[in-house]
């Protein structure tokens, strides 16, 4: 078994074997990835399956129902100054959320430069965009509820329309809300300089680092990306 004891010292082989050797090498698989980041990535993978199942389920019931599906561009239209504009609110919401991804990226960048104040500022701006998104979603829900859309029925067709709508946007909205809360917490910590001084967290009793900004960012971009799919599959289809 000497051979096995020495594989580390020997030159790494090429091709497929080298690939396996690299991946399975000492201590870490992903060499430049910290624990926190790795954990977030894997969580997001798992969460992708959650959203994937939700969307597949929605598509399945859309096919299984025997009643016609309401026309989304009619349902999600607004009268603005007397003009009838299909999907306008969703367009604005999508725009807001995507903008927030931009400010998030800026926050991460400032975090790397240890620019305490601008990082915090950008985090707060991102959180405001997020809150705006949730606010508009609440408006949309209210409007639909006034028009008689319920999870168990609606005036225009298949009842699964309302069920899937409230469930999926609700679940996504919850993700955004959680994100906003996290953004604000992280912003406060950045502002106070916790990550410069290594002040231990209230619950975990461990010091945090600027990297947390980036990890929160990963989550935020993910929630954004998911929205694009919801937008495409629910509103545009």
């Amino acid at each position: 078994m000497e051979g096995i004891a020495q594989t580390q010292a020997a030159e790494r082989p090429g091709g497929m074997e080298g690939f396996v050797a690299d991946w399975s090498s000492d201590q870490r698989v992903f060499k430049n990835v910290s624990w926190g980041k790795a954990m977030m990535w894997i969580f997001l993978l798992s969460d992708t399956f959650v959203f994937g199942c939700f969307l597949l389920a929605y598509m399945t019931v859309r096919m299984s129902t025997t009643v016609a599906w309401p026309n989304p561009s009619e349902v999600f239209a607004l009268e603005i100054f007397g003009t009838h504009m299909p999907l306008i609110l969703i367009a604005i919401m999508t725009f807001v959320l995507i903008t927030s991804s931009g400010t998030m990226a800026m926050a991460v960048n400032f975090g790397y430069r240890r620019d305490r104040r601008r990082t915090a500022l950008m985090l707060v701006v991102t959180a405001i965009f997020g809150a705006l998104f949730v606010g508009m979603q609440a408006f949309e829900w209210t409007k639909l509820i006034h028009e008689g859309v319920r999870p168990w029925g609606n005036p225009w067709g298949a009842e699964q329309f309302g069920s899937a709508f409230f469930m999926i946007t609700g679940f996504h909205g919850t993700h955004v809300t959680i994100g906003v809360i996290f953004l604000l917490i992280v912003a406060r910590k950045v502002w106070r300089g916790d990550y410069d001084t290594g002040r231990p967290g209230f619950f975990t009793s461990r010091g945090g680092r600027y990297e947390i900004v980036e990890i929160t960012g990963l989550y935020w971009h993910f929630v954004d990306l998911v929205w694009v799919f919801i937008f495409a599959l629910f509103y545009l289809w």
Partner: protein
Amino acid sequence: MSTTSDRLDGIPAAEVADVELYHPRSWITKYVFSQDAKIIGIQYALTATAIGLVALALSWLMRLQLGFPGVFDFITPAEYYQFITMHGMIMVVYLLTALFLGGFGNYLIPLMIGARDMVFPYVNMLSYWIYLVAVLVLAASFFAPGGPTGAGWTLYPPQAILSGTPGGQDWGILLMLLSLMLFIIGFTMGGLNYVVTVLQARARGMTLMRMPLTVWGIFTATVMALLAFPALFVSCVMMMLDRLLGTSFFMPALVEMGQRLNHDGGSPLLFQHLFWFFGHPEVYIVALPAFGIVSDLISTHARRNIFGYRQMVWAIVIIGALSFVVWAHHMYVSGMNPYFGFFFATTTLVIAVPTAIKVYNWLLTLWRGDIHLTVPMLFALAFIVTFVNGGLTGLFLGNVVVDVPLSDTMFVVAHFHMVMGVAPIFVIFGAIYHWYPKITGRMLNEAMGRIHFWVSFLGAYLIFFPMHYIGLLGVPRRYHEIGETAFVPASAHTLNAFISVMALIVGAAQILFLFNLAWSIRRGRPAGGNPWNATSLEWQTPETPPPHGNWGRDLPVVYRWAYDYSVPGAARDFIPQNQPPARAAE
């Protein structure tokens, strides 16, 4: 920290700084709200065992009813349904999954890969407490109005939420769904920890291809669980909405007792697909850790390196991947498109190939080994036999034409109890006999262990072997009472009574086991640090039981794989993983 590296031939320098450990200051933070993976593992194991005993007691009640129909008239048909449902769900999810991943995963992963703890101990702690709440919610449903749900562990709608099913229009189904959702959330917190710890926090020299197979099994199973549980989570949400808000995700148009229900256009098949997309991987979530552990038990107690280590690793990974594309073999009679059956039967048979490779490799490891028939080894051998047995009937059921007549008979019950009930439980027993000395510092009593083994092993066969035959006769599963039916001969009733008596005896043997666990903590023979002369890292800790932080001042450095047993020319018949090459001959 990298200064010492020059001395260590060929082992790269440390890449990450040693972790900052949380040091508990009070008894409560040390043993109750503990952030130490070892304590969390024990908490998981004890909780899982406690709720598992409930499931065991339910199986006695079910067997009493099946063996002596009419005698125990306090068991009504509705209660019988509730018993099978709770028995099945508890055994699969709250006992086996929690014990293998939460229990053994927490205890063994950091020790076996040479880490001080999981990467995020705080999240890990939360994982246990959420699991505990999930168990309590589940247990609460026994006391809720209407009792627990009787929908069967598969919880198929529409019946799961209709008034004809116990708990369907009461609290039962709601508490079950809530409990499952909590379980999944709690598991995810722990599971992320296990995966990241294995990927990113190994000791110096511990390459993936040097990890003990136990770690490979638990790791792969955890990855699978992180991808499979979402489907169950989503189905729980949707069924909850169907039941509470009257949506129709799973509910088609229905007439119940002459009444048209307020549901329309949903798809019951959708639930079955989602459920089995979780449900089939779940079988392997339980089986892969068992595969891994059994490999280590066999290698250690036969004093021989595992045969075909690389094959074993790849087989675990490939089985894990394939098990995501076989789910609809549970749905041959569901009315799905028949062409699906063809596809899923094929994938099901393909997955038998890597599984068979594993079995051959176990046998070849034993071949000409120096087999010590210790209690862990006995259980490991029992696992192989039982698993092969259950696997073979699986090949029958995997084929559409054979499955259709056997579907929903006792044959299926016999099959899955062999393959995912009894077999993994044997591994759990073997693992406890094997690692108990590390956990407590004392050996379990050998005589009691042997009695426990022989009664459980022979008993399991006396229970489940005849059940295959009863199933072939056509006796359906989930029946409170078969009654006088022409196709069931009188002898089958005698057989049923026999099975029930055996089930009671096997159950009693488990009480002996529990007694042994408690008794040996104080009275057991002191074990020392490495009673089995094993190679893997957990046996090389400076202290036994390992303290908080596991390794004292210096982290271990790994020079070899975990299977250097009976190496020719070596002084002893095992070389620990952390022994440098130069000293191996000493």
